[in-house]
């Protein structure tokens, strides 16, 4: 699956751009989500880089999100440019996605582990209620200081995520997320 984040305030233009990203694909089904993104299902891997490039030229961002891994599913359309953000959260999301793809702890989960990425104190997308299991990263006071949270989720049983650890240093992000997965898989 390939998720394209759409700024809802620029919806008509952005949806047109997302459509342009999808248009040349061989096989794809596209759906518009109320969370401000469109998902392209069954995209061919060979076509993915071109689609990502077209997203970038349209000034929207997108990411590949298939498989059992820990990834940013909220696809915040303002990630990286939102006021109050201390640093670009997409770097952390991509680091986590790459590390956990094909990771055995992720593979043994029934479904993928979802992680919203937010690097400011303002929860503008309601990430605390987002559907995520290990939710690792939220900026606290300064760069490289993260807050570990988990147990949030929407869907049929909504919960607000709770703080597990107030401060996790950025260079411990991978080990902390793996520790959460290990506890779940024990």
């Amino acid at each position, binding site marked *: 699956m390939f998720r394209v984040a759409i700024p809802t305030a620029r919806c008509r233009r952005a949806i047109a751009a997302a459509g342009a990203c999808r248009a040349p694909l061989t096989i794809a089904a596209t759906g518009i989500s109320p969370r401000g993104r469109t998902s392209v299902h069954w995209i061919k891997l060979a076509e993915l880089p071109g689609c990502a490039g077209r997203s970038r030229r349209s000034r929207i961002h997108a990411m590949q999100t298939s498989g059992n891994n820990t990834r940013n599913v909220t696809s915040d359309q303002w990630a990286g440019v939102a006021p109050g953000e201390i640093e670009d959260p997409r770097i952390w999301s991509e680091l986590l996605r790459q590390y956990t793809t094909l990771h055995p702890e992720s593979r043994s989960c029934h479904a993928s582990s979802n992680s919203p990425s937010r690097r400011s104190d303002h929860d503008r997308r309601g990430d605390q209620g987002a559907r995520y299991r290990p939710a690792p990263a939220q900026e606290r006071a300064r760069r490289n200081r993260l807050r570990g949270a988990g147990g949030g989720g929407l869907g049929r049983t909504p*919960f607000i995520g709770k703080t*597990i650890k107030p401060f996790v240093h950025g260079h411990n992000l991978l080990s902390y997320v793996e520790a959460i997965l290990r506890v*779940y898989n024990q």
Partner: protein
Amino acid sequence: MGRRDNIYKARIKILVHELGIEKFAREVEDEWLQMRDSALTTR
């Protein structure tokens, strides 16, 4: 610890709800202390 019997309940949110946040946080902390200084640490 996570449930395997029902795919809709196979979520960390369900585990946290059943264990309680304090016990879950303790378990994660114990696990993390064993691997905190492993090769997973990025610089």
